[in-house]
């Protein structure tokens, strides 16, 4: 990261809580990160660690109630999105920041042709005429690698496969040349072969258009292939952040290391048993005292059960939330 560059999206001390009958779930607790222009930043973690809520917070799409952004700043183009009125926010959504969802099978409206749905974004934000929107739609479909785009534009979503629909979703996200694309598990619902194609497509598009990507995923394989900077989240907190090289070469947090060991890689060839992280993500309503990972951590010692670690900086640009690294341990 070059320090002189201004971040495009700057999330500072974001806290998004859900107020339920059974208590307050701190889904996102004091999360900060910076997304640089043209950069692909990945947020990694298990289900329920708050990565999707982070993404929805940036889009201001948290269902309210029960959720609410309690604190924090999300600076985008000099504007604080947290304080922006809904009307202004609508102009940003799909226009300057757009989102790709996990489920391409259900994220398109079943009663409209896909061409119409892409065109709607253009008509909404760029006030394009019907004809212009149609031409641009076909252009976009071509760009995301859909063959015979003219006739495909007249298809209904149910006539397309999952991979095709995800391409349509990407076309919709790209329609207004956004500065940031938030992709929430864009490949999780797809076949492995299609996953690779979609990732390749996204990488290609972000490179050619210079769009920044905030990639939400639980799949470290996807991270290794696409991201430049990685944020690892656990129980609503950032536990480690680094550029992709340092993270894979020297993961620091026991949780990150556990995640790495649980992907089939070289171990698959040696027929060694794949390791799993014992236990499950704790409920956000009953988090342990001290380090939130203490009940699953094999290195946990007394201090981990008493006091929650802060982000320690054992190396420049590689903060980690773990007592193991205090005072160069």
């Amino acid at each position, binding site marked *: 990261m070059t320090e002189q560059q201004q971040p495009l999206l700057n999330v500072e001390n974001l806290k998004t809580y859900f107020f339920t009958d059974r208590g307050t779930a701190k889904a996102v607790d004091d999360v900060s990160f910076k997304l640089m222009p043209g950069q692909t930043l990945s947020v990694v973690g298990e289900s329920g660690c708050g990565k999707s809520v982070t993404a929805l917070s940036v889009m201001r799409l948290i269902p309210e109630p029960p959720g609410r952004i309690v604190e924090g700043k999300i600076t985008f183009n000099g504007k604080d999105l947290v304080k922006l009125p809904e009307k202004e926010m609508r102009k940003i*959504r799909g226009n300057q920041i757009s*989102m790709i969802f996990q489920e391409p099978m259900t*994220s398109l*409206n079943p009663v409209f042709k896909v061409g119409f749905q892409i065109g709607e974004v253009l008509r*909404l934000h760029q006030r394009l005429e019907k004809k212009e929107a149609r031409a641009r739609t076909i252009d976009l479909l071509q760009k995301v690698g859909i063959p015979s785009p003219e006739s495909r534009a007249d298809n209904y979503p149910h006539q397309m496969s999952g991979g095709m629909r995800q391409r349509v979703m990407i076309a919709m996200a790209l329609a207004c040349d956004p500065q940031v694309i938030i992709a929430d598990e864009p490949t999780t619902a797809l076949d492995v072969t299609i996953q690779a194609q979609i990732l390749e497509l996204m990488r*290609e598009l972000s490179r050619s258009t210079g769009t920044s990507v905030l990639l939400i995923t639980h799949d470290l394989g996807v991270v290794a292939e696409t991201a430049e900077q990685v944020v690892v989240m656990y129980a609503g907190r950032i536990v480690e952040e680094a550029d992709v090289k340092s993270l894979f070469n020297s993961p620091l947090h026991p949780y990150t290391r556990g995640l790495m060991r649980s992907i089939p890689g070289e171990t698959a060839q040696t027929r060694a048993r794949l390791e799993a992280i014992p236990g499950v993500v704790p409920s956000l309503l009953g988090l342990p005292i001290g380090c939130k990972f203490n009940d699953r951590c094999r290195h946990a010692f007394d201090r981990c059960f008493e006091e929650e670690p802060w982000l320690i900086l054992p190396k420049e640009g590689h903060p980690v939330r773990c007592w193991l690294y205090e005072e160069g341990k």
Partner: protein
Amino acid sequence: MNNTIAEGQIPQGEISHSPLYEAILRLRKNKIAVAGLIIITIFLIMAVFAPWLAPHDPLEQSLYSKLKPPFWAEGGEWRYPLGTDDFGRDLLSRIIYGARISMIVGLVAVAIALFFGTISGAVAGFYGGWIDNVIMRLMDILLAFPPILLAIVIVAFLGPSLENAMVAIGVVNIPRYARIVRGSVMEEYSKDYVQGARALGAGDFRLIFVHIMPNCLAPLIVQTTLGFASAILEAAALSFLGLGAQPPTPEWGAMLANGRALILRAWWAVTFPGLMILFAVLGFNLLGDGLRDALDPRLRE
């Protein structure tokens, strides 16, 4: 990159049809629904072309041909194919013009109920919370009265006339549509495409009426068709009670009321208007049931 995708090829001969179009194709295979559609079509033709189809002016009286029986009965003549009433008015002509009135009543009453019911139901289902509570409790109040009684009260308040009867029937039927739309909107609201549309910058109004409503059409179409039947029936009932169409308007219910006193002397004066009501209601109900089957998502292949 384009060449690597084999999965994106379009199957030969596949044409894009909207879900609604496919439902119509399924409807065509349903004989009973088609029968309903034919009955309705006949009534619509009668309604639209009444002045050309009717042999006489429906209001024209003839003292010399009072209470003529239909042509096949003794004393009947071809001049009055279905006989005449006690003012010597041609029954066939009155029935044909009556179709026009009943269709208009159905259309206006259903339009009123549909318009207000859809908006209030959609708003209630979309926003939930106290807005939902206020709207639906109002609907509950409307539903607490037997519909015809409430219609009578409204007409009594507004004054008896066909126009007021239409308004009354419309108002009485608002809760039906509101409930159906609210339920469908709530179901659709939780689906991903709504969140998707929001993420693309759609506002609430757009979400409700552009994105969600078209997905709620199926139950609404069925209810609207069945609603036509009940509106026609309720309008006839109000007119029969003297609260709807006023004499000499050739409204089926009013004709029944007029013929009631003559039932022993002139059976035709009550039978034919009664049969018309029966067939009109039957036609819409058959079509409504057929539509329900055709639009049922579980039956889609």
